[in-house]
């Protein structure tokens, strides 16, 4: 009878090298310093988390119509509930807020339509970039088809913040590209005009630009010609953001090898053809993170319009904090504002990461 060699089943690895125990040992208690840091972190969490959870969730009051309703000792979220419409729409007449909602739904539907394969993307883009702003403007401002006129001074809240952010982003992007191309141009006058513009704007804080927009622009215009404060602030924000965008795009342009420019020239492409068809698609893809970072910065910077007297989202929160019926709800207001800003900005940065991966064509060196 043949003897068959039967190895005994191998022993499981020691508990200290796999599984949860090993993970804890390696990641939390690998050295004396690490042990100290772990306990220190746990102590900080112990100090912070329980009171915050207790305040924000357990002892919170969710409903009520004045501060008197908040007796549990925790957060008074009823404040947010009462002021919610003002935070969203500012002083926009309550009967007309459906117009803002409609415009937002329209935009979401149009952007969502990109996912449908049978739709012509070119026409859709034109509809969004050209037709939509006109429709949205008349929806917001009114004055046609029997829509009541709503002065821009009544626009406010998150609506104004998003409006400033979106228009600033959409307008500053092409302007930034043109400035970046101008700065890289071989024409000395065009180049110096762009350099002076970019460097001047980048050297000063946005707040001075906004002051300029609200105080100085009227001085530079002929008597009698004056335009809306919202428009002036928008111009200020756009110019400011365009200068930063230009520097980001320039970084991308510089990273494109010379061979690409030469190859485009050798194909007989004109300057604009070579830029639009060859250089920019590559350059912009390289700098997606930078572009999105400037978008996020722009979105956060829209809060500064409060300083020149416009009541955006943060401005409305600040105003609501002064309501004598709701004294002592400052933290709730700021927490709500922080949450909304955080979700939007963090969402943008995550989206940029996804976009980067989607457009990745494998030329990246690793």
């Amino acid at each position, binding site marked *: 009878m043949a003897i068959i060699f039967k190895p005994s089943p191998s022993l499981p690895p020691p508990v200290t090298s796999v599984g949860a125990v090993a993970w804890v040992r390696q990641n939390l208690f690998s050295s004396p310093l690490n042990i100290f840091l772990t306990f220190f972190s746990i102590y900080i969490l112990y100090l912070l988390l329980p009171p915050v959870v207790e305040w924000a969730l357990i002892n919170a009051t969710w409903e009520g119509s004045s501060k008197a309703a908040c007796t549990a000792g925790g957060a008074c979220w009823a404040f947010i509930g009462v002021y919610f419409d003002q935070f969203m729409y500012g002083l926009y007449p309550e009967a007309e807020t459906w117009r803002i909602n409609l415009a937002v739904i329209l935009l979401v539907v149009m952007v969502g339509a990109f996912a449908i394969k049978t739709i012509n993307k070119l026409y859709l883009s034109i509809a969004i970039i050209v037709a939509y702003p006109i429709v949205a403007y008349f929806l917001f401002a009114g004055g046609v088809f029997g829509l009541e006129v709503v002065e821009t001074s009544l626009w406010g809240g998150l609506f104004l913040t998003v409006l400033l952010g979106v228009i600033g982003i959409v307008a500053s992007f092409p302007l930034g590209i043109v400035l970046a191309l101008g700065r890289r141009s071989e024409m000395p006058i065009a180049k110096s005009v762009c350099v002076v513009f970019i460097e001047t704007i980048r050297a000063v804080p946005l707040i001075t630009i906004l*002051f300029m927009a609200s105080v100085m622009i009227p001085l530079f215009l002929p*008597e009698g010609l004056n335009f809306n404060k919202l428009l002036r602030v928008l111009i200020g924000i756009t110019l400011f953001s365009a200068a930063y965008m230009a520097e980001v795009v320039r970084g991308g342009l510089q990273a494109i090898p010379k061979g690409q420019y030469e190859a485009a020239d050798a194909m007989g492409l004109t300057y604009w053809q070579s830029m639009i068809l060859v250089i920019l698609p590559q350059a912009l893809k390289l700098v997606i993170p930078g572009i999105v970072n400037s978008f996020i910065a722009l979105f956060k910077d829209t809060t500064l319009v409060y300083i020149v007297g416009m009541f955006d989202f943060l401005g409305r929160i600040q105003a609501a904090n002064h309501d004598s019926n709701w004294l002592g709800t400052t933290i709730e207001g700021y927490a709500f504002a922080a949450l909304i800003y955080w979700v939007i900005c963090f969402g943008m940065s995550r989206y940029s990461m996804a976009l980067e991966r989607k457009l990745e064509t494998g030329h990246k060196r690793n």
Partner: protein
Amino acid sequence: MSDKTTPSNNSFLNDAGNRALIFQILLLAMVVFAGYYLFSNLQANLDNRGISTGFSFFNEPAGFPILIHLIEYTEANTYGRAFVVALINTFVISLLGIILATIIGVIMGLARLSKNWLVARLATVYIETLRNIPLLLQMFFWYFAVLAALPAPAQSYEFADFLLNKRGIYSPNPITQDGFGLVIVGFILSIVASIGVIVWAKKRQTRTGLWFPAYWASLGVIVGITFIFLAMAGFPIEFDLPTKSRFNVTGGMVLPPEFVAVLVALSTYTGAFIAEIVRAGILSVNWGQTEAARSLGLRDSMTQRLIVLPQALRVIIPPLTSQYLNLAKNSSLGAAIAYPELVAVVMGTTLNQTGQAIETIGLCMLVYGSLSLSISVFMNWYNNKMSLIER
């Protein structure tokens, strides 16, 4: 002999050089025209409103108080003096902010790279939270929600000789007595001596290869010599302690809540950005460098200090510069919570009282422009010093 085969006007416009020339002449004409148009409008508008241009208002009494002033200032002083006070406030907050933000940023950047899972997570949460919330909101939070919620002076929190209440942070105020000059002499001497120690240590290391803890030693020299001179002069410092009364605090040195809120918000916010820069810089150094250093027998601390950090700094410095610039420019947000910096004093109060829009806004832009320029010149110099010298 004329060339009749090619139409001349066509070839002229088809020439790239000519087209560039025409385009640029048009552009220049547009810029000059726009400038002239705006300037003439400005002249007309100023004449209509009876505003005289120029900085003569700088010699007139300002008539408004400034809460925080490091140099002597009263309402009777001139606008010029108010401008200087505001300028100093902007510089102070920017400088302190830069220092604090760098410290926070380095700590948080290293923490996010930590092998300790919990520490890395906490640092990530800190960075991702602060980076994605507007700075103005954070300033409001610190000023209106945290500092305003502190108790009144009578119920101040006390730590040793420090007081904390809604009027600010009070600390003992050192008052120098006679004989303090001797201590200053001692301090200068100690700095000279410490530089001597560093130079000597470097020379010895090049000669013999022996290493000497020069920086710790020089720190000891500074502290030691200064202390000896302090003792010799008989400790010529007295502390004016803050004491609380029913409604107020007397004595001591105070950091007003406006100052604290701006400083904390600026440094924690910018610190989160710097942390990401530090992390990216350290990650950019090839792992092979660390392995090579280890195989040469360097200790971990020396590997970090002598091999990884100098190489990481090359990647870190350019974006760090722009963060410093951002911080200096963002200090202007202090205007929103009444910290009397440049924008608040010059573009706020002075502009409102005098109506000199062009001068005040222009002056502010000029100051921020030169502040930005000086920071970037300094950082460029430092960057050149640190950058790789290739063969």
